[in-house]
């Protein structure tokens, strides 16, 4: 790592020089990883016209179940597997509520989030009241000592496998077409012989599994422990990113990187005195404000999926 020359100049150039660029990029990739996993999961779900506000709770679930399984078995791999299974179950629950029962999506999603957060907190308190358990074995970074590239394998997979694969699947495969058809016009999709319910079930199960991986990344790779506010609004950030990206994969990844760089920059700038005066909270609020501003500026041009927020009833 390049040692950062510490600058005490209060001028702009002073703090530009003082930023350790390599450390910044490295931190940015790590911070963006859970957002990429969960954000792409949300893209998959929203492509079928379902707004999954259960994302925040699902990420908590992944972080918690992954941690619990890894702690009990001693293997982060089994932890990740357990997290993915829990994600499929959470997706199934959301599908049951919004597809089969046709309930209001915001209320179901919010209810699922509140339920899952409470369940995780309850179980954690029950099992480890007053303790702070940590994993003996967590995922290690791949290339210790190498700047930027010293990342977790889940980070590499997120950027080099998941994002291209999701892009390709959504764009060029039959599955992608089906998701899109259901999301844009489910009556037409049904007439064309695509099962609306099955497509939405699959999308919710796969998407929620990706969200739990995003959550589990925090406990299994970054922290090695579980805290009661571990997700801390990252799910809402993903909701924002996906709309900002207009339901496309690469802009979601790009948005995650932008969010991550402001956060990483904040960590760096907190070191330099010149920038200490900008409150961290303002920087953290930027992604939300950016999305609202973007929505306000683009206005009517934001094209939501045609069957957004609607339950399908045949006949």
């Amino acid at each position, binding site marked *: 790592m390049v040692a950062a020359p510490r600058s005490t100049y209060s001028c702009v150039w002073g703090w530009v020089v003082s930023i350790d660029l390599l450390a910044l990029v490295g931190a940015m990739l790590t911070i963006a990883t859970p957002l990429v996993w969960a954000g792409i999961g949300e893209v998959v779900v929203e492509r079928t016209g379902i707004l999954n*506000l259960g994302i925040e709770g699902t990420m908590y679930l992944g972080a918690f179940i992954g941690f619990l399984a890894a702690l009990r078995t001693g293997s982060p791999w089994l932890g990740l597997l357990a997290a993915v299974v829990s994600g499929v179950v959470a997706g199934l629950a959301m599908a049951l*509520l919004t597809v089969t029962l046709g309930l209001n999506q915001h209320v179901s999603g919010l209810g699922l989030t509140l339920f899952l957060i409470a369940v995780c907190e309850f179980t954690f308190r029950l099992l480890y009241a007053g303790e702070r358990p940590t994993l003996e074995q967590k995922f290690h970074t791949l290339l210790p000592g190498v700047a930027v590239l010293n990342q977790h394998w889940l980070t590499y997979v997120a950027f080099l496998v998941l994002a291209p694969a999701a892009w390709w699947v959504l764009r060029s495969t039959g599955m992608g077409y089906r998701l899109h058809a259901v999301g844009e016009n489910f009556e037409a999709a049904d007439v064309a012989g695509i099962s609306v319910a*099955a497509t939405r079930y699959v999308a919710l199960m796969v998407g929620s599994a990706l969200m739990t991986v995003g959550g589990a990344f925090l406990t299994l790779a970054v922290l090695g422990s579980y805290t009661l506010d571990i997700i801390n609004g990252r799910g809402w950030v993903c909701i924002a990113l996906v709309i900002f990206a207009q339901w496309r994969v690469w802009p979601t990844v790009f948005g995650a990187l932008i969010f991550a760089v402001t956060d990483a920059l904040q960590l760096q700038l907190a070191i330099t005195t010149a920038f200490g005066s900008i409150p961290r909270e303002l920087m953290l609020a930027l992604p939300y404000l950016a999305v609202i501003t973007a929505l306000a500026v683009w206005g009517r041009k934001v094209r939501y999926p045609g069957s957004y*927020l609607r339950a399908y009833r045949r006949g």
Partner: protein
Amino acid sequence: MRLVLRGRQPRWVAPVAVLAAVLATVVLTAIPIRLAGANPPAAFHRYLVTPLSTTAGWYEVMLTATPLLFTGIAVAIAFRAGYWNIGAEGQFLFGAVATTGVALALPGLAAPLAVPLGFLAGAVGGLVWATLPAWLKKRADIDEVVTTLLLNPVALLLVQGLLNGPWRNSSSGFTDSDRFGHGYDLPALIPGTRVHWGLGVAVVVIAIAGILLTRTATGIRIRAAGQAPRAAALSGIPVNRLRWRCALVSGAVAGLGGASQVMGVQHQLTQGISNSYGYTGVIVATLGGLSALGVFLVAVLLGDLSVGAQNVSLVLQVPTQLGAVFSALLMLMVLSAMSLRRYRVQWSRPRGRRTPASGGGS
């Protein structure tokens, strides 16, 4: 065996559905209680009955229910008009911030001035926080679910930023604001208890909302705008204007809740001033069927549950979060049951005619 849409709904269906949902929730939450090593019937007795068995317990329940009364009716007003305000949390928080701003700027004010001013500031704060999403909805038809939701974390960050910066406690250095002047302390509604005038304000707001929504022409129009916006627009009801107004009123009511909590309970701004009251308000409004009486009853029920959860965690060592598990699960169950009640079980399939399916699994 198939599920078939009912032709008509017998009267017994809805109560039976709700009862089934409550039973299912009780059975499902008995599992974690059992796992925690407690006896479920004894625990449920403590959750639901013990807090209401003493007068002091009732006071505590009413105190706990007060913020939920505000956020519940706030959400219900907006939902009634078909405006999906998920932002009561942010509006509650910004109401508390506005009240704090006034209280810190004018610390010496006497109670007759300070209390109304504090409430006014809270209402204006909540209204201001609700304005942007409502305006975007009205002007450009931008989905309010996302904008109201995303302003919640922004409000929380604002509170944290203020408490880390300009409003940090001047004597202790903790991230709480200074204590307000005593003029801002809401007087006790019932002398000798912690139940404060916030409860009185909440009940008045709920009563007004209830009368307005059910007994006036405006209320009928609001319901029409919420339930059948196209038909309402065709019959000359200004749907968008009604939604805009309901959105602002909803924000103001949530902001009043913030003012009530900060003046009545904490007497200072703290990071945990809203214990997810805004989000729980969605549960309260939904379970209460978006009616004033329903909101009141559900808020008291959740208050009861929350006081009971404290008791259970002390006596039976079941973590307090079971209360939150129960309320979220209850909402999902009741909603599911109310959806399922439209169907009846048909044991054999009629020949030759396709039946409308329930949507089915994968």
